[in-house]
């Protein structure tokens, strides 16, 4: 997809807050996902679906430059946040990562910290010390993550005392506390029970009015439930993932253009 096509995506009434432009992610020279282009609409949920190995998680991690933790990781093309390429030094890496937050597949609260300290950790890392400010920010984040009522009386307890679903909402609150513009979610419900999964899915619907959400999921029913736009990725013969189709969720699931999308939606391969 060229630059012109991105801007002509028919449903984009709002400007794209992030745009992926001809991105190829390579590990030690081997592409893991190649030539991907799509726009992430502001205050909407964009999902990335596809079978294992299609590069969805690699692409997601390149959106906050976390894939650089792997030695030998490189990227061609550009990923833009509000029009600025995030791979140049225009935005400092630490600032970038506070603007684009991430929630992981297995909840990972910091085990040596209390619930309060976990949610406040992002702000403390940046340098905030004022207790009143932190308390207010923590409460706001926990309210947004629909966790405040459960934990407001046990803020000093260790984070490990929470259930799986609560821990994941704690991680969401922790990410929200630094006021990101985009929240990346890497299969956030994969390790949760069905009730906790439903709670997180409902949360994405309330959160999208506050942050733009990009969610990777290998559960396509989840994608059809929660997302507004959907990107379908598939691993090609050269073992690199590519973008097959990107459109509104409604179109992808009811009237997809590419035959491979049709097959995947119909469940003919996983």
């Amino acid at each position, binding site marked *: 997809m060229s630059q012109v096509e991105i801007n002509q995506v028919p449903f984009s009434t709002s400007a794209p807050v992030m745009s992926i432009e001809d991105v190829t992610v390579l590990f030690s020279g081997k592409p893991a996902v190649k030539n991907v282009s799509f726009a992430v609409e502001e205050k909407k949920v964009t999902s990335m679906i596809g079978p294992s190995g299609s590069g969805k998680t690699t692409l997601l991690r390149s959106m906050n430059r*976390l894939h650089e933790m792997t030695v030998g990781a490189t990227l061609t093309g550009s990923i833009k946040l509000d029009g600025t390429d995030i791979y140049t030094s225009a935005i400092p890496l*630490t600032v970038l*990562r506070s603007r684009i937050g991430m929630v992981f597949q297995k909840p*990972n609260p*910091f*085990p040596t910290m209390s619930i309060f300290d976990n949610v406040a950790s992002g702000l403390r890392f*940046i340098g905030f010390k004022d207790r009143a400010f932190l308390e207010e920010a923590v409460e706001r984040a926990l309210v947004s993550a629909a966790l405040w009522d459960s934990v407001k009386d046990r803020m000093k307890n260790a984070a490990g005392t929470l259930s799986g679903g609560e821990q994941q909402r704690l*991680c969401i609150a922790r990410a929200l506390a*630094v006021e990101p513009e985009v929240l990346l979610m890497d299969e956030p419900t994969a390790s949760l029970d069905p009730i906790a999964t439903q709670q997180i899915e409902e949360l994405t619907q309330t959160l999208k009015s506050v942050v733009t959400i990009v969610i990777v999921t290998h559960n396509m029913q989840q994608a059809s439930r929660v997302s507004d736009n959907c990107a379908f990725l598939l691993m090609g013969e050269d073992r690199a993932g590519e973008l097959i189709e990107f459109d509104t969720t409604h179109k992808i699931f009811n009237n997809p253009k590419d035959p491979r999308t049709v097959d995947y939606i119909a469940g003919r391969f996983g």
Partner: protein
Amino acid sequence: MSTSNVTQLSPTERRERVRLQATSTVSRRNLFSKLYLASLAIALTIAFIPLFSILQNVIGNGWHYLTWGFLTQSQHLPDLMSRNAIGGIGNALTGTAVVDGVALLFSVPLALLLAVAFFDLRNKWTLLVRAAMETFIGLPSILFGVFIYVLFVANNHGITEGIYGSYALCFIIVPVSTINCLAALESVPKTLIEAGLSLGSRPSRVMWRVVLPVARPRILTGLFLAFARSVGETAPILFVIGVSLLPTYSLTTSQSTLPTLMYNYLTGSYPSQRTACWGIALILMITVLVLNLISRIFVARSNK
């Protein structure tokens, strides 16, 4: 037995055959199991006897030296009047505390910083230093004593100082502690580091506020054990710290530590000093035991 015969067996015949084989070797397998267990028991006994014997001798011969007087008084030479008046080990206790304590003071920050360096940076320099350190662990400790001796004592008119012993002990504590700290850091789940970085924290903050607190119990255990080992080190510090008959907290004078005192007593000419070594050995054993216990309690508390 050719293949064609086997395939001509019916299922019932095949089952019979297997049952026959199983039952006919039962007694042989029973005997083998018994022999196997017997050999394990013999190995345990062989290991137990010397251990028990050492414990029995040390405790039996040494327990009556566990008196306040023995622990606090300084040593003095027995005179003709009372051949058993050897005094105590107070001077060696302060010497051990000072020499080993200072060694820890130098070693612990260095080991921690080195472990963090090995963890964060992967280039040829860190790999080189790391390889050297792993070699050091296997070297005989007397080498470090000789090195310090030649460097500081031999060229300096033979003046021995307590701090030289601390230097020599650093060569022993730092490599072991660094490797232990590094293992502790690497045992922290990577996903916690990713979470910290994803919040917009700079890597050094993630290291000190997330990784080190999680690794802390294991690091502290390793440090306790390293300290316990250094308390008993004799060879590296023997030639460089000299002898001190009085308890002193100075590092620039000669010092005695528990192991060097034991060496001096054993090679001396007073029988009462030689038997007092049982008491010193018992005290050393108790010290190491207490340090091990403290580290275990600490780990248990932090795992709760």
